[in-house]
């Protein structure tokens, strides 16, 4: 058998071809293992919730006299219709990966970071300002400076409620919501000032080309996905492989036991919200540099940070889950525009589906109940 030839250099091509030959089977086995290991704990509830969300959305479509199948087909087409549509889904999902990670990270420390929205906006703004004003820097300095500025601005927006929580015990939900409004109006004030506003635009000047992140085929997808992938990996390793992550998770699960273990709980709360804010801020920076290219006047919240809460919820506060949930949201974002065009069904139906999915994930006890009764009914039938 080829296994014997492993020590022989001439066997290399054969080993590679054997490897490739077995790759599909191995991949399937691996996926099966992951599926089985996660079905009960992580997959069952979100997947069932998605199914129910689609179902309820379909019923709504039926109730207004349209064909739900056409809507489902439109959703599929908006994803797989062309390579560009597929890329656009990824592009829509990218910022959500960051805000989802942001919310999930805070949640692992036992905090509810509603402020991903504000931290994301600060990322949009700070990256824009640096990208416009430090245009004299070479690309190798300017691009990192923009990303860093967005990250730090987001981190600052997490640090303020984090400090208030750690030192004063003020609840982070209240403070992060306040910080969202401050970020919103600060952004609008600054970009409408003569310092930043481009004539004829309700927006700033364009970011210096040297600071831009390349897009794929002109879609919203851009090289930022590499940074997103890195952020997912770093978040995972930080949480589950480092002392810091151990302390973060201990604090999140049981602050009393964390204190007993000698962990400085207030300091961990503060640092968790800073990191949470940095993740959202980095997402904002990438959105400015990769997609928007200017900072636009905001007429309200962008929704990216708020949907980050839903993404973290559906993704079960796990970095990999967040990626999958962000992709789902990417699909829904993109298809909401397509549906109205191709089927005449109002785009709000997508909002209904989103709401149902969140509802069913949040109400996972209901799902468990339904799952418990389904097989019994099957037996009786």
């Amino acid at each position, binding site marked *: 058998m080829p296994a014997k030839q492993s020590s022989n250099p001439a066997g290399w091509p054969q080993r590679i071809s054997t490897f490739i030959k077995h790759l599909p089977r191995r991949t399937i086995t691996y996926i099966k293992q992951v599926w089985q290991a996660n079905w009960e704990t992580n997959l069952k509830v979100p997947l069932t919730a998605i199914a129910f969300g689609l179902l309820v959305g379909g019923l709504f479509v039926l109730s207004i006299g349209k064909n739900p199948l056409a809507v489902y087909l439109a959703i599929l087409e908006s994803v797989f219709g062309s390579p560009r549509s597929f890329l656009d889904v990824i592009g829509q999902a990218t910022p959500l990966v960051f805000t989802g990670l942001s919310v999930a990270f805070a949640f692992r420390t036992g905090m509810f970071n509603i402020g991903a929205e504000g931290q994301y906006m600060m990322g949009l703004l700070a990256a824009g300002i640096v990208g416009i004003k430090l245009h004299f820097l070479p690309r190798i300095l300017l691009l990192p400076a923009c990303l860093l500025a967005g990250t730090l601005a987001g981190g600052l927006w997490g640090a303020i409620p984090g400090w208030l929580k750690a030192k004063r015990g003020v609840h982070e939900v209240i403070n992060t919501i306040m910080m969202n409004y401050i970020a919103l109006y600060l952004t609008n004030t600054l970009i409408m000032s003569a310092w930043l506003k481009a004539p004829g635009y309700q927006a700033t000047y364009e970011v210096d080309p040297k600071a831009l992140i390349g897009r794929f085929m002109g879609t919203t997808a851009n090289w930022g996905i590499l940074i997103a992938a890195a952020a997912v990996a770093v978040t995972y390793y930080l949480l589950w*492989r*480092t*002392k*810091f*992550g*151990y302390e973060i*998770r*201990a604090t999140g*699960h*049981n602050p*009393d*036991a*964390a*204190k*007993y*273990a*000698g962990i*400085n709980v207030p300091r961990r709360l503060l640092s968790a919200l800073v990191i949470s804010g940095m993740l959202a801020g980095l997402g904002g920076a990438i959105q400015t540099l990769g997609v928007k290219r200017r900072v636009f006047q905001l007429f309200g919240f962008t929704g990216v940070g708020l949907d980050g809460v839903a993404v973290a919820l559906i993704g079960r506060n796990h970095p990999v889950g967040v990626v999958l949930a962000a992709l789902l949201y990417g699909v829904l974002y993109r298809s909401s525009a397509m549906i109205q065009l191709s089927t005449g069904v109002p785009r709000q139906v997508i909002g209904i589906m989103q709401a149902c999915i969140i509802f069913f994930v949040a109400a996972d006890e209901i799902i468990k109940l339904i799952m418990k009764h389904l097989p019994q009914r099957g037996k009786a039938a």
Partner: protein
Amino acid sequence: MDQPLPFVEMRGISKYFPGVVANDNVDLTIHRGEIHALLGENGAGKSTLMNILYGLYQPDAGEILLNGKPVQIDGPNTAINYGIGMVHQHFMLVEPFTVAENIVLGCEPRRGVWFSRRQAIAQVEAISKQYNLQVDPRARIADISVGMQQRVEILKALYRGADLLILDEPTAVLTPQEADELMQIMRQLTDAGKSVIFISHKLKEVLRSCDKVTIIRRGRKVVTMPTAGASMQELASLMVGRSVQLTVNSNPSQPGQSVLQVENLSANDARGLPALRNVSFDVREGEIVAIAGVEGNGQTELVDCLAGMRPATSGTIRLRGQTITNQNPRAVVEAGVAHIPQDRHKHGLVLDFTVAENAILRNYYQPPVASGIFVKQDEMVDYATKLVEKYDVRTPSVQTLARSLSGGNQQKIVVAREIEQQPDLLIAAQPTRGLDVGAIEFIHKQLIEQRNAGKAVLLVSLELDEILALADRILVFYEGRIAGELSRDEATEENIGLLMVGGTGKGGDGVAS
């Protein structure tokens, strides 16, 4: 036998959970007017059996007969309709509501669409008079003692017409005095024709207060027998399935140098009121010093101060001469103090962490478990595996969540982790609270072993039996002071008990200044 028809009969009850046989063909017969103890270790299947009787679970096999007729109990409401009431170990009371409001909650007397508070109070007063269970119907739950709250729970069941009361480990939360009162209440109820199922693993109480006892081991019924004529040894052996050593500390201590010196220590409780007043004592190598007292007399505050989890308002704590007053918990641990906390769920464990993650709670940041900024997963698993094997923690794997283990095994993780720190001083705060006989025996052995290895051990316990079994010296706390000190030889249940309630014991020479 020619006996009247039993009130409740459970026949051949079996209940399976994935991978576990919780009940295997269990029979249980309850007659009117009897107190029937259900005795078994944690995880033996007592609670499952009672949850089946109360309608929370459906049995996979077997039947339940009520007055000789088979019934199906498909939920607590059905159980209540059949006259079965349950008082859970953790009370189900609405704290801001009054006693009367809690008792009538769910079947409130009404006047029109309005809740009639006056009628509720009258009804509660009537029922409390009928069963001679005094309560103040207007008092708020948050303001009354735990013993009173339990009384409210019992009245709640009686108000709903319960003929059979299931009491799930009712004495676990009570002081010895409150427990005595509960025994009287149970007797009054059975005199009035009610039946009581008393779930417990405290042998003494079972012998003292129950008529019959059914012992369950690993999901099977071992025996049902009258308690008259049974001995603690006999019950313990039947419960665990082997002979159990109930007293462990046999050889006298040979104390060495002083390890812990506490001088004039004072501290406040969570509300900021003085709870520990000017306490001084020391603990030496090779001795177990026990702190006795009714709960809430400053023991918790003392332990918190010693462990660095509560600031002292005055006084000093020294460990081998080194001052550790008001240090943070980590500094205290690194100075050589190990601490088995009284509430393992709140402080001792992170329940949603795995066994392995809990095992490294003290040393996750040090080599060999940590390296640089990382926690080494292999080292963590190795370390935890070593602990699990050495201390016989029964867990499917070290990657199992601590939450899913039994109380005894959870506590073994805590004990293992703390002892493995090789401390100079081991503080054990109520180390066997809520554990079964097997686990208690194990933990007592560990404490004795630590003492024999020359460590200083400070034991805080509410159980006089435990103190008498283990202690070399006994300090009795009353209202935040040391009311008296007794040596092992002079201590008896009587003189400790007297000091505990503020009397003066015989051993007057040890009374603190």
